[in-house]
């Protein structure tokens, strides 16, 4: 039973399309990250699910009910806003109790549940404080408690960690994830931070320009991107243009300016099609020019143009001819320097051919 179904959702503001024909399903208990650059329509989508925007076209189903026309107060979604939206004139306890009050739960019960959840989010004893007296992390947890205490059918998070500093963000990531798992609540998580999406989500939906680019598990999205846009958005990658010469069982051979390359291939690719090879920098190995590569590996020879020390990694730019400069990341102990001749090797599994848009 899918908990959230977005059915051909479209939203236009005047003549400007914000979201176009978005269809998505979230299974019960799963955490899906809605990922994309600023202005891609992800927040608009979230707001349509919550009921703050009315879709221009399409339907929204929550827990098997078509709630597209329902006002926000009748949707039973828990929402955590980017700025937390804690009521400044109410204490933490009153904030958290608010949703229960709206549902007509009786006083004693409210007090019990609020105390329970405050303990659970480690805010026990702070119920009498006002939001302005809390730290960023505490406000965050209050917002979560407020959303969860009413036992909503789905949880909506709008860039919840954007206002926290880097270290806190990392801690809160795992915290939110474990809370979500514990409540086993279907969650839609909007973010522009792709590292966050990959870490947290069961599945990732990538939105660009209001259009869904790809929807799949983090590993799929990372290793098998559908388009250059997605490949470029998620992590770093090298993109090498070419044409598909042949395809076989799960493999394609792509002719590039550097010679033929064997790689994994998008099922949509056919022989003769224009393609792009995506190879992630960390999957490229730097070898001495005379070293013997592994069996079946692709090898390209070139010269190091630049070496940068990144702390946990060393970053290289290697000119392999044909106008292609590859970005390679390897262990910091790699000693190759600018001017050195090297060989760059990668397995067929490490490379992925995707369709190249011809426009």
């Amino acid at each position: 039973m899918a908990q959230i179904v977005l059915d051909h959702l479209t939203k236009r503001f005047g003549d400007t399309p914000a979201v176009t024909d978005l269809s998505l399903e979230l299974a019960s208990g799963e955490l899906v990250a809605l990922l994309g650059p600023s202005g891609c329509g992800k927040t608009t989508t979230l707001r349509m699910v919550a009921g703050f925007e009315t879709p221009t076209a399409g339907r929204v189903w929550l827990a098997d009910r078509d709630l597209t026309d329902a006002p926000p107060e009748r949707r039973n979604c828990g929402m955590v806003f980017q700025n937390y939206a804690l009521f400044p004139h109410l204490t933490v306890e009153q904030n958290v109790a608010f949703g229960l009050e709206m549902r007509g739960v009786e006083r004693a019960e409210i007090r019990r549940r609020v105390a329970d959840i405050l303990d659970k989010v480690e805010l026990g004893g702070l119920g009498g404080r006002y939001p302005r007296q809390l730290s960023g992390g505490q406000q965050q947890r209050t917002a979560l408690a407020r959303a969860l205490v009413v036992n909503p059918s789905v949880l909506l998070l709008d860039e919840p960690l954007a206002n926290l500093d880097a270290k806190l963000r990392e801690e809160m990531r795992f915290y939110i994830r474990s809370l979500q798992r514990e409540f086993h609540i279907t969650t839609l998580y909007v973010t522009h931070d792709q590292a966050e999406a990959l870490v947290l989500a069961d599945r990732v939906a990538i939105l660009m320009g209001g259009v869904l680019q790809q929807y799949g598990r983090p590993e799929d999205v990372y290793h098998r991107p559908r388009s250059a846009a997605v490949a470029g958005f998620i992590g770093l990658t090298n993109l090498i243009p070419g044409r598909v010469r042949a395809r076989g069982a799960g493999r394609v051979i792509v002719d590039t300016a550097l010679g033929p390359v064997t790689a994994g291939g998008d099922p949509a690719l056919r022989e003769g099609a224009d393609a792009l090879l995506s190879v992630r920098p960390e999957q490229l190995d730097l070898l001495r020019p005379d070293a013997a590569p592994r069996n079946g590996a692709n090898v390209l020879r070139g010269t190091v143009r630049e070496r940068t020390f990144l702390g946990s990694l060393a970053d290289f730019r290697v000119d392999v001819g044909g106008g292609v400069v590859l970005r390679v990341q390897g262990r910091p102990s790699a000693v190759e320097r600018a001017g050195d001749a090297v060989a760059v090797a990668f397995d067929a599994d490490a490379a992925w051919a995707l369709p190249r848009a011809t426009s």
Partner: protein
Amino acid sequence: MIRPRERRWMAVAVAVLYVFLLAPIAIVVLAALNSGAYLRFPPEGLSLRWFVAFAESRSFTSSLRFSLKLAALATAASTVVGTMASVWIVRFSGRWRNAFRVLFVAPLAVPGILTGIALLIFFYAVGWGNTGFVGLVIGHTLICTPYVFLITSAVLLRFDRTLEEAARNLGAGALRTFWRITLPLIKGGIISGAVFAFVASYDEFNISLLLSGVGMTPLPIQLFDYLRFSFDPTAAVAGTISIGMAFVVVLVTQKLVGLDALYLGGG
């Protein structure tokens, strides 16, 4: 103005100007407390005799009472009407927003004297003749509503809408959200607007000049008549009361809303 010497020059100039700004007000208070009938320098001595004279003056005290009553009514009417209007204009007016804003500020922008005359002639034309009290209340409400409107809409524009969205998300309908979340948080602005409206009505001269009648004399009119012909400091007492009120209002507004947010926003 960066170097200390420049800053000192500026501070001196500014101090002089502030003295200029506040001198007449201080003078009035001094005159009210002065023991003599004419303010001399050096001052003759302090005395409360003029306060006593004011309290004993039938005409002054009755017009003071009248002004307070008038201001109370005008404030009540304009606060209700003005707040409703600003909610509508900020939230629901759509592309007519600017037009309505201009319309609602218009009573302040056109000369009060002309508005008074227009109302006088209008009341005659619709057969109200010398309407007295009702006409005055209407005229004052007309002047006070823009103040309430300006202040409450400034507060509403600053209001964080996501708080309302959060309330809706938690199950509160539109009305309940307004009552539990919006209203408590803009309360300061409404009170501020009401207080401003009160003072605006209390100080209002132009409209009152044309619409007041026998037995319906607001304090400013009483003062004006008095000042044209005599000069003893009983009038200064009335002035001191106004000054006291003004400072209270300003302090209250500063506390509740913050003066610079209200007046300096938007260049």
